[in-house]
């Protein structure tokens, strides 16, 4: 603890087992990237589910995706892309010690996330209202009447609800984490030397955006 090498880099946020801030920052970044790796493979199982059925039974996807409103999906894409931009700007601001700008950008990000969830809520409630549900609870008779050629349509909606549900869960986690970052920013915990938590939050949020970038054409636009 009292080793002499530490004194020249003393920063109140430097943990005891690191030599210097840069090492701490690099550790956090590598750790976050490894976490993102696990996230990609976690969603990967669902993408595998998707591609197998898409290739085994393309009719199912052509027919069932008509039930999704691509305008709402597109709106959500734009909202998420914009929030990705704002979170990148938040990191840029804190790198230049502009705490207020950083707080504003973080707040806009959270607002965008809420807009995303509200749109998602309307989409989900429409599905639930029509009985277009995943799995054995599927009972959308209208769909069956209009698309007699589509086999097992519940599987498409299983995929839709699993993928967007897991993605939505990540959006909620992101809101909680970014709100915490916003709180800490307002309490002046970050500066241009110590902003690793904001950068990690940013990486996470970009990943959430990345996954949606794929989900949008795969689910809505077939």
């Amino acid at each position, binding site marked *: 603890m009292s080793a002499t090498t530490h004194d020249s880099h003393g920063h109140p946020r430097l943990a005891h087992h690191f*030599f210097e*801030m*840069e090492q701490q920052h*690099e550790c956090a*970044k*590598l750790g976050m*990237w490894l976490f993102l*790796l696990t996230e*990609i*493979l976690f969603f*990967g*199982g669902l*993408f*595998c589910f998707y591609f*197998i059925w898409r*290739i*085994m*039974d393309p009719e199912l996807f052509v027919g069932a995706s008509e039930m999704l409103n*691509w305008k709402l999906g597109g709106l959500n*894409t*734009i909202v998420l*892309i*914009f929030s*990705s*931009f704002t*979170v*990148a*700007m938040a990191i*840029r601001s804190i*790198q*230049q010690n502009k705490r207020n700008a950083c707080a504003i950008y973080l707040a806009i990000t959270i607002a965008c996330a809420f807009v995303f969830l509200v749109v998602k809520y309307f989409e989900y409630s429409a599905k639930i209202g*029509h*009985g277009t549900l995943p799995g*054995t*609870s*599927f*009972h*959308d*008779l*209208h769909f*069956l*009447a*209009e698309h007699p050629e589509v*086999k*097992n349509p*519940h599987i498409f909606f299983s995929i839709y609800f699993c993928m967007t549900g897991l993605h939505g869960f990540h959006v909620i986690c992101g809101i909680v984490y970014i709100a915490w970052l916003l709180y800490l920013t307002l309490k002046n915990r970050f500066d*241009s*030397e110590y902003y690793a938590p904001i950068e990690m939050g*940013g*990486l996470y949020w*970009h990943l959430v*955006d*990345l996954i949606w*970038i*794929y989900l*949008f*054409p*795969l689910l809505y*636009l*077939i």
Partner: protein
Amino acid sequence: MSSSNSTHDSHQPHITPMWVYFGVLGALLILTVVTVAVAQVDLGPLNLPVAMAVATVKAGLVALIFMHLVFDHKFYIYLLLASLVFLAVFVIFCLFDLTRRHEIRHEVAAPIHAEAEWYKELRIQAAGLDHGEDHGDSHGDLHGAKTNAHSEKHAPVQTPAAPQH
């Protein structure tokens, strides 16, 4: 420690110029429009690859610029690519099995092509719906279908269990 210093030796982090971020935002929005526009055109078997290609360009922009992969140590790009390689192995091997499973022995574990048993009853109900209210427009009979379906909701859920064991 030794590997991290090679790209930039100072402690100053890379600050991306403002115009780069605005440029990427603009590009992403334009590409979103392209995604939608491309989907309106039927390219046959190319539909999926083209949609994925556009999405990948967008994802690449986000990863390279917003996530700073371009400015960081190359190791992070390798990490990201490694995860995609393993994911590809997973998906491709599974697909390889499912698409070619019954080529030698047709009777063994063929991929499921049949519709689940419990659709039979739903199909009958749907057919009845079609005949009974043929003249109404689709929004008009929506309400009736919903209530109708609700009362029948539990029946189809039970059916799959029975033939299973």
